[in-house]
């Protein structure tokens, strides 16, 4: 699924996504991509209902990579690792947007923006992503300015 907008967002499909992002990007199809979520019957049933009428698939990372390409796809991944694995698997997104990443219990994370926490391991992986030529930004809402993500990591010494 080349050319897709990939958003990293722990809360997956929620108000920011349904009200603002899908309209702004002209999204025609949503793919929620995370192995655990795809294995959870409850979330597989609920997420498409939250998408306000947009066709929505809930896939594991492998299934996302195997899915056929299409125009106007927005891929929402739960954790940064999902995005890393997608790119490792050969996906070339138009942009990876780091939206909401809350710190996970037990992790030592630094808040890079108000809504994005990054651990040391993740910082390396983000850098690899950017080095591979994938545009990497953080932009919470469409009306916010997209900010290059790697310089933010530099500033926090990660």
């Amino acid at each position: 699924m080349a050319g897709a907008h990939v958003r990293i967002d722990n809360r997956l499909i929620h108000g920011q996504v349904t009200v603002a992002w899908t309209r702004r990007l002209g999204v025609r199809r949503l793919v929620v991509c995370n192995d655990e979520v795809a294995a959870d019957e409850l979330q597989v049933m609920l997420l498409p209902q939250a998408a306000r009428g947009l066709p929505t698939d809930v896939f594991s990372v492998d299934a996302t990579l195997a899915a056929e390409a299409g125009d106007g796809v927005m891929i929402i991944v739960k954790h940064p690792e999902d995005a890393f694995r997608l790119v490792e698997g050969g996906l070339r997104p138009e942009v990876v947007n780091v939206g909401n990443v809350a710190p996970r219990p037990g992790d030592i994370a630094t808040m890079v923006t108000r809504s994005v926490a990054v651990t040391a391991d993740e910082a390396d992986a983000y850098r690899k992503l950017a080095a591979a030529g994938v545009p990497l930004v953080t932009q919470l809402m469409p009306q916010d300015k997209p900010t290059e993500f790697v310089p933010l990591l530099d500033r926090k010494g990660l």
Partner: protein
Amino acid sequence: MLVALALTLWAIYCTYDGLGPFLIYAQRPLIAGSVAGLIIGHPLLGLLIGATLELAALGVYTYGGATIPDYQTGAIVGTALAAGAAGAPAAQAAIGIGVGLPAAILLSALDPVGKMVTTALVHRADGYAADGNARGMAMIHWVSLVPWVAVRAVPTFLAALAASGGLVKDITASIPAGFVQGMTLAGSLLPAVGFALLLGMMELSRYWYLLLIGFVGFAYLHLPVLGIALIGVAVAMLFVTLKRDEPVLAVPEAPPAEPTVDPRLTKQDLRRVFRRYFWSSQISWNYERMQALGFAYSMEPVLRRLYPEKADYVAGLQRHLQFFNTSVLVGGPLILGSSVALEEAGTPKSAASTKVALMGPMAGIGDTVVFALYNSIVFTMGASWALQGNWLGPAFAAVMVLVPYALVRRWQFGFAYREGKRLAGHLAAGTLARVAQGATVLGFVVLGGFIPSIVKVVTTLTYRQTTTVQGQPVTQSVAIQNQLDELLPFLLPVLVTAGVYLLTVKARLRPVWVIGIVVVAGVVLGWLGWFAPSAPAKS
């Protein structure tokens, strides 16, 4: 001074209301401004200013903690300053709107400051939770309200103090009448911004034709808005019931009988959990965990009852201190009820995972139904009455949020607790999607009537037409508005709203810029005397 203090107290209540109980949605400008007008002793000013700001801010709510203009403070401060201004009430209201709007936009810069302070506080709460110190955790939860309140109450107090001096009168006395006339026109155009923002959130390409129902109802049949809303309910019911024939997700078979849970929680415990959530769900909202502390604080009585061992109790507190955010009116109480049920059933793991599974989808559906649809309809109706100086406007809006939201929250909590593990099956049966669709349909029908009835603009331009009557050339002045009315009633309001919609959605201008453009255009065109909110009385 007394008035300034009273306004500050009101600002404190408004902020709290929008973080915890949502009794009357007091942070909305319609309510905040109307009561501020009462406090000052100029109720009409509060109604006019609050209603105008309300209509400019329809559908503008906090989604997932994004910062929005501080319309609450704008309405209170605008009303306070307007009361001190020189001139007739209409001129004062125009000045109040002129002050309130930029104030709301500028003060939004303070919102993140408050939220950052609460982010630091939540780490203290982690420490207390690790010690099993519920009292300390509760203290942090309630103290977090202070930074939220401070960034709104302090500017309100300062502006109210300034308003009580004679300075405002001196400054405003020199404002030219043309500007006031222009500002009045700008005020009557501003609702177009709110409607355009709302349309931008709804599926216009799919349902645009529903706007026609409301438009015809108002423009040709002269139905009052309540009548249009009733038609909207009927159309929404049609959509939802006819849709049932489509293959929706199959209702899952009743799950195999579960081992009955022996009820260890008392009625008292449940009441306490619900009460805590009702009164304080997001007073400690912060960037890092969002509503987590509020959720943990609400769950605490249940955890204390279920886990006599301190280690288990601490683990429970920590489990519910994890990141959480959802829609607190539709969704939150449901998740709370299911968490209580699953903890009681001795399955804390699934309590945590169900919570995570539900919070995103419920926020998507809840925010849409509450903000973009139900509230927008109720507050537009309230504001349209308030603009006519009718006190029923804000009162209607307040009652329409107080009663239904209290009942809906209570019901969700009880339902989710009783259903426990079966809850997921109910939700999966497509109920949520149907509710959202019905509300969308109603929204479109009503909006079709709101646009012509609330965006008020006519042209006062005329042109001279020379005709020959019985061989004599006669020159008449013809009002362009009359000709427009023959073409299509309310053509100008429709064009203005469409123009603003294109600016926000197609040209992707930020709402703040769009508001600026509308205000400047209104002031200029009104000052020149080319356009006015309503046709001038025939002289």
